[in-house]
């Protein structure tokens, strides 16, 4: 019977655990030609460089700001939308709205970015209208000050519908009789929301929040890779694009692996820490 587990376990070991050994290059001046065995061992030098290389600092700050904005703007958005959808009486309207808001999830980033560029770019729809009417033009896409909120807005636009799925599932799991009793006791819509709906999905919200914290140092790689050149590395570079440019493209594998390793370690600590914290607060947590 346990033999059936084997393929799954094998998969995880071969494709998840064995590659972890590759992290050894974070302690080497790794060269693909020399390989793991012959590359010079530099100990913690890459980690020391990590703190002295100014680009890493910039990338870290950018990542944290975008992540923070995501937590504030992007994380609650699907919850709000799910609550809204849940309150709709007509099944057919609800389904229609759901289908429409799911759609952007299936559009690739390249296309999403092009659409935004066509609408908000310097030569985009909005500015064309402004220009023909002789008004001042605003190039939102190339302004470093707008870059970070813009990334989050794009995230919201693309993923908010998809994100509602799990919350809608949680909402349907709430016993309808709770709403009925609340209504009979004289609770209006707001109080039903506050005292029935929200507590009903609290478990799921906390679960997702913890998982989200784990990836706090990871923000949309493809999305930012495409748009970073618009505003420059100073405003746009995040840890993932740094690793890509510095490691994969420029061949500084050691430093890049060190950044990746630190990222993973911080993520793990945050998940474990948050899990511990919510357990202290009486929630269930993830594990």
């Amino acid at each position: 019977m346990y033999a059936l587990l084997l393929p799954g376990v094998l998969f995880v070991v071969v494709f998840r655990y064995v590659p972890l050994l590759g992290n050894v290059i974070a302690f080497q001046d790794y060269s693909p030609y020399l390989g793991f065995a012959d590359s010079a061992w530099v100990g913690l030098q890459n980690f020391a460089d990590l703190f002295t290389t100014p680009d890493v600092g910039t990338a870290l700050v950018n990542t944290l700001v975008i992540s923070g904005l995501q937590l504030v703007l992007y994380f609650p958005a699907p919850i709000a939308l799910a609550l809204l959808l849940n309150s709709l009486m007509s099944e057919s309207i609800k389904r229609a709205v759901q289908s429409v808001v799911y759609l952007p999830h299936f559009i690739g980033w390249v296309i999403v970015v092009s659409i935004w560029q066509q609408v908000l770019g310097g030569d985009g729809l909005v500015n064309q209208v402004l220009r023909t009417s002789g008004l001042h033009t605003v190039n939102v896409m190339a302004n470093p000050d707008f870059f970070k909120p813009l990334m989050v807005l794009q995230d919201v636009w693309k993923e908010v519908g998809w994100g509602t799925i799990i919350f809608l599932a949680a909402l349907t799991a709430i016993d309808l009789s709770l709403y009925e009793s609340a209504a009979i006791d004289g609770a209006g819509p707001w109080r039903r929301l506050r005292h029935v709906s929200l507590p009903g999905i609290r478990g799921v919200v906390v679960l997702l929040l913890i998982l989200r914290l784990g990836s706090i140092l990871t923000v949309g790689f493809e999305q930012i890779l495409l748009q970073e050149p618009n505003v420059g590395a100073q405003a746009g570079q995040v840890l993932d694009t740094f690793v890509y440019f510095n490691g994969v493209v420029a061949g500084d594998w050691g430093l890049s692996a060190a950044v990746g390793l630190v990222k993973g370690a911080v993520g793990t600590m945050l998940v474990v820490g948050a899990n511990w914290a919510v357990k202290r607060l009486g929630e269930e947590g993830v594990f």
Partner: protein
Amino acid sequence: MTVELTRRDFLQGCVAGSGALLVAACGGGSSGGSAATSGSSVALPANSHLAPPDLPWTDHNIPLAYLKLPAPFRATSGTPGAGGPLSEVTWFSDLFSAPPPPAPGNRYWADLNRRLGVTVTPVWAASDPSSFQQKFAALLASGDLPDLVLFGGTVGTTTAAAQVQAVQQGAFTDLTPHLTGSALDDYPNLALIAPKIWQNARINGRTYGVPRGRTVPGTSLLLRFDWAQKVGVPIAQITSSDAFREALVDFGSRDPDGNGRPDTWGIPDVEFTYSYFAEMFGAPNGWRLNRDGSLTKDIETPEYRDAIAFAQTLFKQGGFHPDAATQTQANHYSLFEGGRVGAYLDALYASGQTRPFLAQLGFKDAIRHLLPPPGPGRKAVTFNAAGYNGMVMIPSKVGKDSAKVRQLLKILDYFASPFGSEEYTFLNYGIEGVHFTRSANGNPARSAQGTTDIGDLFRLLTPPNVNYAAGSQYFSDAEQEAWTRLVDQAYHDHFKIGVDDPTVGYVSASSLRRGPTLNQLVVDSVKALVSGRTPMSGFDQFVQTWRSQGGDQVRKELQQAIHQHR
């Protein structure tokens, strides 16, 4: 779309057609052209064969110009790969289109194998630098490199850092003894590559690869002649930076396309055009090598600073497209071709891509190459290019056997067969009747079958560009001649004031490690300065950042490298 239209083809240098020869029975001997021609004052190795150019050829660094299809000739003798130790040759190179179907179904590929005397098996990677380097790293890490490996880009550019590193660690064969001096005589077609290009393709003084030749004269600005006329600043009057700025600003404000809408601009983008401003003000080409052997980075010179200030004013006055700071390179040409911008910078050898557009505009006087108009009190220059795009290297594992090296170089020599040769026609156009047909004046044009079967197989190594327009279906005979002469003149004019980058071909530990980041810093800062996001007062801060973030270290090491390997 016909084959001729694509930008890629121009970039790759298969600018034109070739010999009106049915695959003739040349019994191994060569017929036709020889290097010693009346119009040529360039000394070439005695055993090299070249179709005699139609316009005087006065400098090895300026492409040969042809007004009509030359008589076909053989550029190689025998079968290059026959009798060598390798019966199968694998190679790693870049892919610009869908991979061709495999032999034997693909008659081009099958015939290529037959002609080379070996079976060729390419390993491809997408041609953009990121994908290419990624695939290269994977191949390198696997420890199993193909017999021939393309080095992407040029030595010293930031995109090739990982490959230079591999070379320095000994992954590739030092080909210096095979490819310098009289040893090069064994490869008559490789000997046709200009000495300057060979020199630029060295890595710290040693030759590791055969350069995929382009041209030394670098970029040129194409300007809409008709627009300039219309806004009242004719091109002949654009001889100063002020007149140039006036024309560009007027392109935006005076509706040169006459459609009544404010939808035209001067310059399409910042990133791919700003070198032109530096040229106008006589800034160094990347670096300046001073008499005492020290290096000055371009951004540290007053010329460069003036150029940026000029561009900033131009931007403020509306001379740039509004998306200038975010434009992609591909978009940059489509804006020009779409009639949205009036200026466009590209490699001189790529200016042939504008032919369909020229034809659409009614060829005469529609577009002109504009030499950089000098800034006040400055002497304009042009920046010479390295003259190649990639080079083909041989891994050390393969290179241990010098018989293999010679066999592989013979095969590369075949690929480098010059324009007009029977080999060139086959490589670029395939088999007549299957892959291409000939027009009335004998110029070959690929069929759809040809495009599919040939794919990028011939692009492993291509000979340096020639200046030839007669293959175009867009021009009349008189027009093609006028155009070829125009381009020839532009090559001469640009090369005459051309300056080299003294650091091409030299690398150091920190130029590799910090190069990409520093380069990014320059691009980002220039965009910010030109678009006015950063005022000119921030210029010194930018130079300071560049110096402290590794620029000074790079300078020190490059100085050393040049001193040591020159």
